[in-house]
Each structure stands twice: as structure tokens, then as C-alpha cells.
């Protein structure tokens, strides 16, 4: 597409569309990473909770690594070293892999906390009714523990959404990267960053409000 002549003269309506599209890509990469991360994280959390020592001994420290090494380093390392082991992933999928694992390492702790929130007597009561181990997990531990840690999970999810901005270092054009491109062109950093910030806010605010209303429904 050939840019018009008013290219350097400031922000245009089409640039807003451009940002909107980028915001959509932020939503896309976040939603995918959070979904994968949550599923994996719940499984990891369950392994940690059940505490088979071998699993906990290897998994625990591994998750610690993903939690503590800055995401931007993980992203760059993975993107550059994955091809060496034969994984040729584009920036989007590299981002999903790393964000997903990062999210899983955070969710693992949240999920373990949720399982710990369901008392042993409660679970015994469930088993005494003839429920199997898995039925107990599905119908008792998941809903009770899930509700207990739902606010923490929302916190993790919103955090991952914001952190998805880091995938821009790989060249994936999401909200932050798009803003940078526009800034270079228009030289209006304050305006554009304000708009980008507003987009992030517009994405997370409804989620946190919705989460709060769900919580309220549960506690009433």
C-alpha cells in the first residue's frame, strides 16, 4: 500500500484503524497464551499439589526459572535458539509459546493454592459419597478452589495481556509495536502512547469489572 502525501503531517483516521487492528492482535496473542497457560498451569499446579516428590522436585525449580527470568530475555532467547533445534516459528507463535509457558508458571502456583483452599474433610466428605478421585476434583475441588483463587487468576491474566507488549521485540505488530511505528512516522509520541494506553485500559477494564461482578455473585 502506497502511503499518501500527508504521511508525515500527523495522525489520520486510518492510523486509528491501524492501532485497532494491532489491539486485536494483542487480544489474539493474549487470549491464546492465557488459555494455553491456564490449562497447562492447572495441570502443573495439580502435580505440585499432589507433591509426588520427583515431579515437584523437577517441575518446581523449572517453573521458578520461567517466573524469574525477565520475559524479554526468554522471548529473544527462544526466538533465536528455537531454529537450532528445528523449530521455525514465526514471531506470533514464538510469543504464544513463551507467554503461554510464562503464564503457566504463574497459574501453577495459583492453581496449587486453589487446591489447598479445599479442606481435607471436605474432600473426604465427597469421597464418602462414592465420588471417585477425579469426580472429587471436577465437581468439588475445581469449583470451590477455582472460586477461591479466581481474583488471583484474573490478576495473572491481565498481567500476561500487558506483558504481551514484549512480543513486539520479535517484530510482531501488536499494540505497542504499532504505536512505535506510528511514533516514528508522526513524531507525536505523547498522543500515540496515550491512545495506546487507553486501548490497553479499554481491554482490561471490562475484564476486571466483569470479574468483580462474578465474584460478587459467588459471595452473595
Amino acid at each position: 500500500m502506497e502511503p499518501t502525501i500527508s504521511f508525515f503531517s500527523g495522525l489520520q483516521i486510518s492510523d486509528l484503524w491501524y492501532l485497532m487492528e494491532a489491539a486485536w492482535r494483542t487480544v489474539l496473542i493474549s487470549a491464546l497464551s492465557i488459555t494455553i497457560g491456564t490449562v497447562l498451569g492447572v495441570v502443573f499446579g495439580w502435580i505440585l499439589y499432589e507433591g509426588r516428590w520427583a515431579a515437584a522436585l523437577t517441575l518446581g525449580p523449572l517453573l521458578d526459572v520461567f517466573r524469574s527470568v525477565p520475559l524479554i530475555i526468554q522471548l529473544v532467547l527462544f526466538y533465536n535458539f528455537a531454529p537450532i533445534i528445528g523449530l521455525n516459528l514465526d514471531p506470533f507463535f514464538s510469543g504464544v509459546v513463551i507467554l503461554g509457558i510464562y503464564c503457566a508458571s504463574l497459574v501453577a502456583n495459583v492453581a496449587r493454592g486453589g487446591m489447598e483452599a479445599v479442606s481435607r474433610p471436605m474432600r473426604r466428605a465427597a469421597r464418602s459419597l462414592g465420588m471417585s478421585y477425579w469426580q472429587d476434583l471436577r465437581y468439588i475441588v475445581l469449583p470451590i478452589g477455582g472460586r477461591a483463587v479466581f481474583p488471583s487468576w484474573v490478576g495473572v491474566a491481565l498481567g500476561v495481556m500487558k506483558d504481551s507488549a514484549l512480543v513486539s521485540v520479535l517484530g510482531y505488530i501488536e499494540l505497542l509495536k504499532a504505536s512505535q511505528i506510528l511514533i516514528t512516522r508522526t513524531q507525536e509520541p505523547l498522543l500515540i502512547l496515550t491512545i495506546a494506553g487507553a486501548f490497553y485500559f479499554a481491554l482490561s477494564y471490562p475484564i476486571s469489572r466483569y470479574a468483580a461482578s462474578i465474584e460478587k455473585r459467588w459471595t452473595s
Partner: protein
Amino acid sequence: MIEIRGLEKYFGTLQVLKGIDLTVPKGEVLSIIGASGSGKSTLLYCINALEEIQAGSVKVDGTDVHAKGTDINALRQKLGMVFQQWNSFPHLTALENVALSPRIVKGKTKAEARDIAAKQLEHVGLADKLDVYPSALSGGQQQRLAIARALAMEPEYMLFDEATSALDPELVGEVLDTMRLLAEEGMTMICVTHEMNFARDVSDRVAFFHQGVIEEIDSPDKIFGAPKSEHLQKFLSNIR
């Protein structure tokens, strides 16, 4: 019939049950009394395999509870259990609390499970609380909910572990009345209890636990009227 032979239970190196022999025939109401820490709760947990055992055996209608091949989830449906802490499922209404296991464990349809639950809630006097969440129920009501939840699996035996101990005094009566009702209906019951009046009035037999053994077991008249063991005499004089 529940048959317990030479049952021994350890927690680590601590021996909590030291060779229990006990037979409870169908239709009997057995009360278990004894000091705190004497192993009463542990015995109940061993009967429905919520705890493993180290020696001896427990048989329910001839099935060895702790044997490898036993389908314990099927067997537990025969053995309703009510705990000191009522453990209502907080995310479900009273009706859903009771309907859950019939639906997922017994494979009843939603409508069938609902009917069963409504019937059992009426049975324990909670017919007007079907759609209420446990947090809005009193302790006594929650304990009756727990009884209804156990009864919904149509158990042949009921195990009560100090069902009234965690209740405020004024709520004890309603739960004991429900237990009395079950006894009158012919339910086979093993009741660990500190309610001596209940043990005396309702039981066919009373067992006195002392440090992991059944020190005395007899009719309520004999246990309360003419206790033989010194420990039992002391136990009874302490609580009077």
C-alpha cells in the same frame, strides 16, 4: 453386616487401633463412646476406607473393604457417613448438594436426582430450603443437609462421627431427632457420640473405646447401669 476382625491402624509409629473385633448386624444401632483420642473416628474412617489399615480386615456384606480388587467407590455408596464438620458444598444449593452424587456417581438423570434430593430434604425437615445456599443455613440445618446428602445414595449403613459436637447446644436436638428417626426406620447405624442420653435411649448396644481397643461392649443398660471396666466407670463419672 459389618464384620471387623483384628483391625490395627498406625499413624506412622503411633498405633491408634490395637486389634478391633466388632460385628454389627443389619438393623442394629451401635453407639461408640470413649475419651478424646481413643480412636473412635479412626475406626469409622477405616470402615469406609478413608484410611488404610495395617492389619486385620473389614468386611461389609462379605466384601473386604481394603482388598485390592474392591470397587471402593461402589462400596462407599452402601456406607453413608456424616462428619462432625458438616462439609456442605458451598457452591451448590441445598438441593444440588444432595442431588450431585446421585447424578454423577449413580448416573441418575437430572430430574431423577432432583426428585431424590427433594425427598431426602423433606425427610430431614428441610423441605422449605431447597434453593438456599449452605451459607444461609444454621449449623443444625447444615448437618441435616449432610444427613440428607448421605441418604440420597440409599446407603444400607450410616456412620455418624460426632454429628452434634460442633453444634451450638440449642441446635443439637434437631439433629439428634433426625438420627432417632433414622433409627426408628430401621437403618443400621454406628454412631460415635458424646451424647450419653442418645446412646442410652436409641442404641441397641454401646461400645466403650479406650486407647485403641474396645474395652467394653454391651447393652446400654449394662454399660450405663453396671459398667465393669474401671476406665469406663471413670469415664462415666467424669462426664456426669
